[in-house]
Structure formats: C-alpha cells, structure tokens
C-alpha cells in the first residue's frame, strides 16, 4: 500500500483524524482557559479539576439519579458552572485587586481540594461511563475504524468553540468583557455592572471545562486525576495561541492535536513533550503567541 514518510497511508490518515479529535478536545479546554485568562486575567489552575468534576458529575448523576448522557451534557455544565460562579463570587473576587499570581495560587489550592477529596471518596483507578447507545459502534472511513463517539466529540466540541468565539469576538457583550478586564473601574464609571459580568464569565469558562468533562467521560476512565495531567498541556495550547485570543486557542488546539498525533507515529517517546518544543519555537518567533496582540 502507499506509504507517506515511511508509514502506510492508512495509518497516516488515521493519525491525522485522531489528532483532529484530540485537538478538538484541547481546543474546548483551552478555550475555557483562554476565556477566563483573556477576560479575567485569572490563571485558572482549577480548570483541570473543573473538567474532572464535569466528568464525575456525569458519572454520579447517572449512577445515583439516573441522569442520562444527553441530559448531563446540558445540566452538568450549568451545575459546575454555577459552582464556578460561587467560587468567583466568594473567593476570587476578594483577591481580584491583587496580583494575578494570587488567583493562580487560590485556584491551585482549590484544584488540590477537589482532587484530593474525590481521591479519598472514589480512589484513583477510575470508573467507566457507558457510551450512549446511539453513539456506540463506529464508522469505517476506509483507512480506519473511527468510533462514532469520537466523531461526535469532534462535532460537539467545534460547535461549542465557534459559538463561544462568536459571543466574545463579535458581540457587544464581548467588547464589554474585554474592556472590563482592562479597566473595570472605568467600565463601572460608564455604568456597566462589571462584577456581575466577571462572575458570569468565570462561570461560563468553568462550564466549558465541565462540558469537556462530560464529553470525555465515555472516552477515558473517570478518575480524580484525569484533569491535572491535561491541565499543563492545555495551558501550553493557550499560550501558543496567544493568551486571551479565543480564535488562537481554538486553532492551536486543533493544530496541536494533529502535531501530537503525528509525533506519536514518528517519535512516540516525545509525544508529551513536543508541544513544549513547539511553544518555545513559537514564542521565539512571535513573542505574544500565534494570534496574540503585542502589548
């Protein structure tokens, strides 16, 4: 069969496809992070944990309340997002005026708390979450067998990304948010209720993470540590894309998925590292990331 760079065409295509799927995941997660950082300048270290909470909420909701996948896809982001708002309202707001580092520290602390608690409650070996019937089985793309669910993840994630991008880059609300984060005092002097806006935004960002969590539940074992391993990669994605650039986060997410996918074929040992290599190269050439505005 035809070979590309020394691997069978089929495998190559397969890797591209899978890369795209994972990419969509990164995109969704880094999007939430970008929204929160870009708009609130909060380095949300709890993002991984909130993603994990999303997955757990779906799992437990199913176990104890019989909430099915589709319902979870809607409810969980709302619930966890709501939780996020509480966090913002009662914790983050109190340190908003301080150096952003403190936000990082606080969310990091929260991450430890969430994770540690769940570890003690459920252990770490991770539980399974059944794939909904409709999405079971797979599609034969000719060059590979693609589980239907992964195809769905791709679609769902991208839709969500585009929606968010539009909300923030193309609407008046978005403009308020961007301005509010730059000089909230002045925005208030214009009559905008900035605190409320910030709470909602944080909630939304967290909601995105939770949404990703629910999407992930059927893919990976649902375990308290599922988030922390992902967090740092997602950070890298946001940075490469250019902090606060929504579009950057999305495109970079997809791109990194693909690059990582190919690395897994040509130099698998470096699969977890390649993204950092990319990050260094990018920041060497474009100090504010691929899509970031230079200050």
């Amino acid at each position: 069969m035809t070979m590309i760079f020394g691997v069978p065409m089929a495998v190559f295509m397969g890797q591209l496809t899978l890369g795209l799927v994972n990419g969509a995941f990164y995109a969704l997660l880094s999007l939430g992070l970008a929204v929160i950082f870009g708009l609130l300048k909060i380095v949300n270290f709890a993002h991984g944990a909130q993603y994990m909470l999303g997955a757990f909420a779906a799992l437990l909701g199913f176990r104890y309340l019989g909430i099915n996948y589709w319902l979870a896809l809607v409810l969980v982001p709302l619930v966890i997002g709501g939780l996020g708002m509480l966090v913002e309202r009662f914790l983050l707001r109190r340190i908003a005026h301080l150096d952003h580092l403190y936000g990082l520290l606080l969310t990091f602390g929260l991450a430890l708390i969430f994770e540690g608690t769940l570890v003690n409650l459920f252990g770490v070996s991770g539980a399974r979450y059944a794939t909904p019937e409709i999405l079971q089985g797979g599609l034969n793309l000719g060059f590979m067998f693609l589980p239907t669910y992964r195809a769905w993840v791709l679609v769902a994630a991208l839709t969500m990304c585009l929606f968010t991008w539009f909300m923030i880059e193309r609407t008046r609300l978005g403009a308020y948010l961007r301005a509010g984060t730059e000089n909230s005092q002045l925005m208030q002097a214009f009559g905008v209720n900035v605190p409320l806006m910030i709470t909602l935004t944080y909630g939304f960002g967290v909601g995105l993470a939770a949404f990703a969590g629910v999407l992930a539940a059927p893919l990976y074992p649902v375990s308290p540590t599922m988030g922390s391993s992902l967090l740092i990669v997602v950070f890298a994605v946001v940075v490469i894309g250019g902090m606060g650039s929504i579009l950057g986060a999305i495109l970079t997410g997809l791109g990194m998925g693909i690059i990582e996918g190919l690395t897994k074929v040509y130099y698998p040992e470096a699969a977890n590292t390649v993204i950092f290599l990319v990050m260094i190269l990018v920041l060497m050439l474009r100090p504010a990331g691929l899509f970031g505005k230079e200050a």
Partner: protein
Amino acid sequence: ASTAHADISDNEVRIGYLADMSGTYRDLAGPGGLTALEMAIADFGGSVNGSPIVVFSADDRNSADVGANTVREWIDQRNVDMVAGLVASSVTIAVTKVLEENNSLGLVSGSAASSVTNEHCTPNHIHWVYDTYPLANGTAKAVVEQGGDSWFLLTADYAFGHALEADVTSVVEASGGEIVGGVRHPFPTSDFSSYILQAQGSGAKIVGLANAGADTVNAITTASQFGLTQSGQQLAGLLIFLNDVHALGLEATQNLLLTTGWYWDMDDQAREWSERYFEKVGRMPTMVQAGIYSSTMHYLKAVEAAGTDDPEIVRAQMAEEPINDFFARNGRIREDGRMVHDMYLAQVKTPEESTGEWDLYEILSTIPAEEAYRPLSESQCKLVQN
C-alpha cells in the same frame, strides 16, 4: 519470657507501613494494605513474647525521596524494625538502599520490578508477592502456546517498561513466537487511540501491554472502543491487577489473559480470609494486600521463634521456614531475597460467566514456584554466587 524480652529492641516490635495511600496505586495496596497488616497483627495476638507490636504508616505519594526520607526518619527517630508495603518500584529501590545502609529490614509486597531482587537486591529486604518476570513469562508463554505467535508491544517508556519489554520479547521468541512491532509511549499517557491504531495497522495477533496501572487501564479502554478484539486481535495484559479489571469492567477486559500471584476466590483458605477482609474494607483484596498479611505474619512468627527483632537474625529465620499459607504455596525465600511461590495463569471472565461484582478471574493453570521466577543462574544480584 523476660529473657526473650531483652532482645526485642525497645521492648516493642515496630513496623512501618509505607505505601501510596492516595495516588495511582492506592487501590492496589494503599489503606487496604494497612488494614491487612493490622489484621495480621491482631491475628498474631498484638504482641510478640509480650512485647507489643506498634505500627506507623505513611503515604509515600509515589515519590522516591518522600519514601526514603520517611523510612530514614523512622529508623533514626523511632527505631522501626521492619518496613512493609512498598509499592512503586522507584520508591522501593530508594527505600531498600536506606534499609541496607542502616541494616534494617523491608518486606516488599507491592513492587513489580524484578530488578528489586536482581541488580538492586540487598540482604535487607524480601520481595514477596510477584514481579515482572513471572507475569511476563507466564502470560506470554501461555498466549504463544494458544497460537498467539505474532506480537505488537505497547511499552511504557521508562526503565520498568523497558525491562518488561525485554522479558516478554525473550519469552515470546523462546517459545517460537515473534515480535512484529511495537511502540514506546510516554509515561503516563491518557490517550492511547493513536497507539491502538498503530497496533491495528501492524496486523499482529496479540497486542501486549508492557505498561502498568493507569496506562494499562487506558490502553484497554481505548482498545475496546476501537474494536480491537472484534477485528480479530487479542490483548495480553502483562501487569494488570484485580482492581484494574474491577475498574475497567468485564465488558472491556473479558477474556484477557494474565498471570497473578494470588486470587481471592482461588480456594477455600483464600476465600475465608478474603471474606474477613471484605467485612472490614468493602472491597475484595488484591494479591498485594493479601501478600502484606502473609509476609507480616511470617515476619512475626520469625521474630517470635528467634526471640529477637534483630534484622539479620530475623531475616535468616524467615528464610529457614518454608511458606505455606492462604496466600503462598510452596513458598521459600531465596538468597537474593525473592520469595518464590506458585503463580497462576488466569483469564478474565465474560460478563455472562461472572456471578458477582468481584467474580472476575478464572484460574486456568498453576505455574510451579521454581519455574515461575527468574532462575538464580541468571541473577545479577550481588548476594548470589555464580
């Protein structure tokens, strides 16, 4: 008794339980292991020749230096006589170095690396439950014999994975199979889809998992999502434990072949103990948790018999006695510190076959103690003359 008393340091037998209490291996040993240890002490009567048995426990958080420091402090500050548990190989190796330096004693139950009693062996620790050699051997041999003669290996890219990979490769080739391909994935990896795809591309009959813990779990999950088994390939888990299978569910793991040192349901003795354990913990014991009980019990008996908790004497005494309890059959402690005992080839039941949450394995055959482990003739251990 007072004479015997004299030889028990500070008139207490002090045992330190060091394990990953909160991380990846929590369910393998963790708090359950501590319970098993306490059961052993209780069953033994709580004291040796009138000297009470005291337990300290700590979480090594899978970090070599946390582990080593904890043990160093136990020895410096509390004169701990024996350290039990010991899971992550990196921690174990670090700890055993400390034990050797301070001439103390360690009973390793959790670690997988066969190097623990090979290049890293010391006169101060005993490796109790299992190691990679029999796991790889048992499984690989059996699989090849059943016709699975072409292999693709998914290897965790670190020392331990490499060792496992080497073991398997030699066994597979020795028994007439061949390795048609493989990939070394970073440790840890959460998404295996790409590797599974490569495995599918390789056309090998068997996909061997030369990794552990979460990696194995993730690999198996992904494999089932990509219909690996449907497409005629079979998985061989080289290092998979009861808690993994339990977590993964039979749907994903059915028919998986694996080698184990013990299974709670393997006979009446085992069942009887496991029921008691279940009462306390609410989960069935893993082989590691059972091994912790077994090794502790053997240790206490030796202390009693020797009338002292002096490590060297106790170590010798333990080696004297063959081990035959609910856990180990035909067990004996070799000079390299390896406790060899019968191992078992098991197959994961299908959901249909399974009668309960914990009814997971079917034992296919027994691998005799003397064949199971790496022969001393191949040993690089400094304690072995050859």
